[in-house]
């Protein structure tokens, strides 16, 4: 009844081509954004920012990045953790080498550096596909982690091999370091997420996104109709790594403040982000957000319910958490193999007809 296209007339191509053609969608997104930007910063506290909001926002950026590569271009990658590490170490080197330059520029530059590394490790994709490419990107994961552990230059020769973010400010407010306020870090990451989502959404609707999807659906056919596989695949690797690099930079500088590469950017991270986009929905920007929310918020929620609410032992709760999250993943994927985003889309189809399904 509320959710419908009828009566929502478009009089120009511009209106017809907008991101959210249905008015209800548009309003919902605007309200969500307004709440996220104007209300949440005033109520957020340290716990909500550091335990819930920051990991969600940062993983969502990483998931958007990986979704471009895997979901839109069809190139399976297991190198996400390694690329996030590139972003983190690039920011660290830039932050310590050029302390007077704004952290925003450092984060973007770190994304750019990661894009370069991503293209380098994307080169094998021109010859190999599918599982074989996954193995090649797995090599990137292990090589990059090894590199950052092995070469002391990357961690400025510190005794422990840890990198820690010094304090940097934006408009006089500390964004990194221990004195950063919860709302500042939250807004900082949120703006990067909005930037990532808008750019990704519009890239995937344009020529570039269509050539990626052509390659994904059938590379030979795409090549015959004039898509350059070299350009399409490498641009997917570049854009994807750019976002993943930004996520890695924020993960290190804003969220954790100090990381060691093997623990923070290990193979588990690659799998986690891959699971996010599989559960959320391959080839859907909204799916990246939903997948990140599912895998970041659910464990925290379960922990709070089982330990905080019910007072169960922490080890039992931790084990149950694995079982419940694992069980839910299987259930969701059996019920809807195309992920949460597809569930949402089916729900919207139903909503359009409601309350008169015939």
């Amino acid at each position, binding site marked *: 009844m509320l959710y419908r296209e009828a009566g929502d007339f478009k009089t120009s191509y511009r209106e017809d081509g907008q991101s959210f053609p249905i008015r209800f969608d548009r309003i919902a997104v605007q309200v969500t954004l307004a709440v996220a930007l104007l209300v949440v910063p005033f109520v957020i506290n340290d716990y909500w920012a550091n335990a819930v909001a920051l990991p969600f926002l940062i993983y969502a950026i990483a998931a958007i990045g990986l979704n471009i590569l895997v979901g839109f271009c069809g190139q399976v990658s297991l190198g996400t953790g390694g690329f996030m590490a590139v972003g983190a170490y690039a920011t660290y080197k830039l932050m310590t080498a050029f302390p007077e330059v704004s952290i925003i520029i450092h984060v973007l530059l770190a994304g750019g550096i990661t894009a370069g590394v991503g293209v380098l490790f994307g080169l094998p994709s021109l010859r190999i596909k599918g599982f074989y490419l996954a193995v090649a990107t797995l090599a990137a994961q292990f090589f990059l982690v090894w590199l950052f552990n092995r070469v002391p230059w990357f961690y400025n020769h510190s005794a*422990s*091999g840890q990198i820690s973010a010094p304090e940097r400010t934006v408009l006089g407010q500390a964004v990194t370091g221990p004195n950063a306020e919860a709302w500042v870090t939250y807004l900082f990451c949120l703006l990067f997420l909005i930037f990532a989502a808008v750019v990704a959404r519009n890239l995937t609707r344009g020529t570039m996104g269509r050539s990626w999807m052509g390659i994904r659906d059938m590379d030979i056919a795409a090549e015959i109709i004039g898509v350059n596989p070299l350009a399409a695949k490498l641009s997917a690797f570049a854009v994807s790594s750019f976002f993943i690099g930004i996520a890695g930079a924020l993960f290190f500088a804003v969220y*954790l403040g100090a990381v060691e590469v093997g623990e923070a950017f290990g193979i588990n991270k690659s799998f986690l982000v891959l699971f996010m986009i599989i559960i959320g929905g391959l080839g859907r920007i909204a799916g990246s957000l939903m997948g990140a929310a599912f895998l970041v*918020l*659910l464990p925290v929620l379960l922990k*709070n319910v089982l330990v905080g609410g019910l007072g169960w032992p922490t080890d039992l709760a931790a084990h149950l958490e694995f079982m419940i999250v694992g069980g839910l993943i299987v259930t969701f994927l059996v019920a809807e193999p195309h992920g949460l985003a597809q569930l*949402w889309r089916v729900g919207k189809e139903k909503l359009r007809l409601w309350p008169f399904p015939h």
Partner: protein
Amino acid sequence: MATKKLKAAGAALVSACLLAGPAAADLVFPDLSYRTGPYAANGIPFSDGYQDYLTLLNERDGGIGGVPIKILECETGYNTEKGVECYEATKGEGALVYQPLSTGITYQLIPKATADGIPVHTLGYGRTSAKNGEVFKWIFNYPANYWDGASHAINHILAENNGDISGKKIALVYHNSAYGKEPIRTLEELSAKHGFELVLLPVDHPGQEQKSQWLQIRRERPDNVIMWGWGVMNQVAIQEAVNIRYPMENFIGIWWSGSENDVLPAGDGANGYKALTFHNLGMEYPVYDDLKQYVVDAGKAAGAGDQLGTALYNRGMYAAMLATEAARTAQEIHGTADITPAMMRDGLEGLDMTEEKMAGLGLPNFGPTFKVTCANHGGDGLGAMAQWDATAGTWSLISDYEASDSEVLNPLIEADSLAYAEESGITPGCE
């Protein structure tokens, strides 16, 4: 989007219940433990010891100075992200002191806790240069640190070789993380001083795969092997050493590689394995009678209650003992039973661990005596060597508590802490 909002609402509800719960009058001791994952075998006994001692004080004495203790346990899984979540979840409830039992999480917490004004006590782990209290005002790492440990191990080898180890080859098998890398700088300095050759063999997390490292040890035949391991890595390393028939008496573990869980899987082969320690072992102490009476028999023991008397249980208990004594000291200094984290810091800094105090607590001769000062947050760095007897199934001390090589360590600590001070804009000094 809808699922997200639903979850957020649910989490909000739950955390609201959480925050409304506890009364403000308790002394809150968070326990960031890990009872799951590859490090659980070592995390469980430590956490059990820590909690049981606090429970004992509650049951026997009604808390500290009449104020009951509240334990907030939070599972970190030895993972820094979960560690941050645990820190944020517990700090709002008046947490007095954090003991994360993880060097990685300690590095996260040092700047955060300093900014929030909550002390962190890292008992024999964490950042070594936190010994310099002029820079690390909120961080304490007494009674001994990693660089002390590295020096103890070398001193032990020196003593065995009549003071001359030039030309010897010593291998360091270490967990490839901040924790395992801590001793490298010290060992390099010591290698220059004593003329031994240092071979570095990193083992990646979690450490179940060490064939190549031990193959290298078999090939290079180092005179001694020193290990900085944790969790499942310890068991695997000791088993591999047995497999290549490495002489166990030449194999020395840091204090975190010296629990029963580490040596038992290797059976008789582990006989003679050595590990450092900074407190006594076994359960021949009066406090165990009280623990049995008030905690175990009353069914209030943490975990399964089967870890009493193990090396790490004793260490957890020791950590709790030092923390509660510091709280007592804080109560005396400030003349109030209801202390804040800032008062707790003064207590940790004013702690004077004497023999009478330990005997009074039912732990005579349990650890070395030491006195904390503002300039020295690391104690005297005394350590002893323990050896495993596989037939009896016990650890026994084979040396006295000995000092580390402060001639080498002090300049290193000075340099590292001042570098940190410069990096984070701290002016060193004692007010």
